């Protein structure tokens, strides 16, 4: 491993160090605030180092990793999400948990796993990144182990994740058996030399799709999502919704890119079937849901179905679309969960929709923020969600994948109903004032609000002037290609 490769890995090393630093801080009996601030700074440092090393990209660290623009883009997005989640976590955990400190270790470990996923080009790093992500998540979901059925959520997630990991491994083994290598590009070469895609490879890929589908909560592997979103603490849920999914999607995308899966008719059919089922089920499941956390889970099922439509073309437009969509989605979902966190009472999360009645008249700022986020999820113009959906549709239309595209359109109309349902609740006449205890940490509250403002500005900014970010995405994606 040469100097430049080390340089390229620097952000990831910093990220890895972060969890160690936290452990040390805990060992030195530092308080929550110190840990929070340190963690924040560490994440900033990660971003900074990423900026610092941008010139040496792309670097392949044989055989496991490749740090290129694509990886950097998604890692950056992940780190950004973690920054925000971390910020929101403070107020949430400070009020609820006597010992919130290990939380940060797990968060950073999990993030490391997700980041590894974005840069992995090998089954081993894929697998380890995924497990690092999952194992930390088991603990994170059940972190508030005495509340909110957190343990139940943790157990469900753990059992299913472990189950699907087994499928992943079995699938990987089959592909390895077929291709003789676990290296993406080597597999691609093997596939190119093979006359036609072997049944073993297809079987392996299908089994791998189970784990990926599970992590992305795609139908029919989606059933955990609502339960886990509901049971997990909102910051963790937002973490699952963003970081975990971005990481897994990134590796899926890279795998598909490397192997040129778009040329494989069977695999594309499988993916489009999954996409369609996800769009339909997700949206229909959410229709009458009264729990906003579950509702966001269902909506995320649908959204990743949309995202798979962008995945279908497998060309650069599709990747761009997916990247933009993920960015928009991440920002949006962070806002939504941010609002939930800010509104949550100490003993009860603000998850019942009835709590949001007339919120606009009580807390106009929060309500507007939430409404904007929901409109973005619904894909209404002026928001990034619209551009995202537009991008995805564009990719789909370009590929002439008419069936998925039509399903996308129809289901997003259905989906509109439940977003509007929440919005109309926000603007309802009779208002239920959300009970809120005295704010313990004005600074962090202010910071959280500021974060929301920034996120909303980003959301609207990307929605109105997507030109400010699209060239950036393109540039990043070009590095290493």
């Amino acid at each position, binding site marked *: 491993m040469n100097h430049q490769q080390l340089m390229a890995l620097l952000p990831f090393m910093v990220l890895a160090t972060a969890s160690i630093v936290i452990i040390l801080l805990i060992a030195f009996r530092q308080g929550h605030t110190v840990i929070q601030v340190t963690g924040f700074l560490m994440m900033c440092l990660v971003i900074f180092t990423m900026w610092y090393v941008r010139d040496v990209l792309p670097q392949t660290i044989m055989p496991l990793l490749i740090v290129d623009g694509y990886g950097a883009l998604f890692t950056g997005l992940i780190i950004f999400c973690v920054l925000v989640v971390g910020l929101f976590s403070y107020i949430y955990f400070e009020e609820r948990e006597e010992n919130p400190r290990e939380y940060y270790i797990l968060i950073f470990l999990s993030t490391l796993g997700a980041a590894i996923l974005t840069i992995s080009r090998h*089954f*081993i790093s894929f*697998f*380890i990144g995924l*497990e690092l992500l*999952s*194992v930390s998540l*088991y*603990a994170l979901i*059940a972190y508030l*182990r*005495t509340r909110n*059925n957190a*343990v*139940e*959520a*943790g*157990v*469900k997630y*753990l*059992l299913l994740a*472990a*189950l699907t*990991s*087994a*499928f992943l*491994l*079995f699938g*990987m*083994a*089959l592909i*390895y*058996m077929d291709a*003789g*290598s*676990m290296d993406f590009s080597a597999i691609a070469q093997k596939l190119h030399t093979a006359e036609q895609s072997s049944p073993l490879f297809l079987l392996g890929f299908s089994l791998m799709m189970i784990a990926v589908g599970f992590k992305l909560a795609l139908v029919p592997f989606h059933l955990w999502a*609502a*339960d*886990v979103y*509901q*049971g997990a603490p909102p910051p963790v849920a937002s973490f699952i919704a963003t970081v975990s999914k971005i990481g897994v999607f990134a590796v899926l995308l890279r795998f598909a890119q490397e192997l040129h899966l778009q040329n494989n008719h069977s695999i594309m059919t499988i993916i489009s079937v999954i996409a369609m089922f996800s769009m339909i089920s997700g949206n229909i*499941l959410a229709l*009458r*849901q*009264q729990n906003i956390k*579950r509702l966001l889970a269902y909506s995320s099922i649908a959204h990743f179905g949309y995202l798979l439509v962008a995945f279908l073309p497998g060309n650069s437009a599709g990747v761009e679309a997916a990247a933009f969509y993920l960015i928009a989605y991440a920002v949006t979902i962070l806002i939504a969960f941010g609002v939930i966190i800010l509104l949550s009472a100490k003993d009860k999360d603000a998850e019942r929709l009835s709590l949001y009645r007339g919120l606009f008249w009580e807390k106009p700022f929060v309500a507007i923020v939430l409404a904007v986020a929901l409109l973005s999820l619904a894909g209404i113009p002026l928001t990034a969600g619209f551009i995202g959906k537009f991008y995805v549709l564009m990719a789909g239309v370009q590929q002439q994948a008419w069936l998925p595209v039509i399903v996308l359109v129809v289901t997003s109309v259905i989906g509109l109903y439940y977003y509007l349902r929440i919005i109309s609740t926000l603007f309802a006449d009779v208002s239920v004032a959300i009970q809120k205890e005295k704010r313990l940490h004005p600074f962090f509250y202010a910071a959280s609000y500021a974060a929301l403002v920034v996120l909303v500005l980003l959301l609207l900014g990307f929605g109105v002037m997507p030109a400010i970010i699209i060239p950036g995405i393109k540039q990043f994606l070009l590095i290493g290609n």
Partner: protein
Amino acid sequence: MQSYSVLVVAAILFVLGLLGVLTRRNIIFILISIEIMLNAAGVAFVAAGARWGQPDGQVMFLFILAMAASEVSVGLALVMQVYHQHKTLDVSKLNNLKDDIDV
């Protein structure tokens, strides 16, 4: 001996594990069954490694081991919590989180 006969064995083990996951209600048994599945996947890897004469399959097996260990540790910790809170290990008792639609 052909590799696919090993794969067949692995597949049978794998499916048996899956059957265990499906039929058992005790969380510990489910965890055990998952271990069986992971193990089956390991067998497949080692077989694949053997097919190509590469160490990678066995290396992967090591990683699976590590992963199984950490997973089981967290899993068992959760089992303890479940038992503590619910006084049972019946996974079907863990159904507080579900859709309840009241329109």
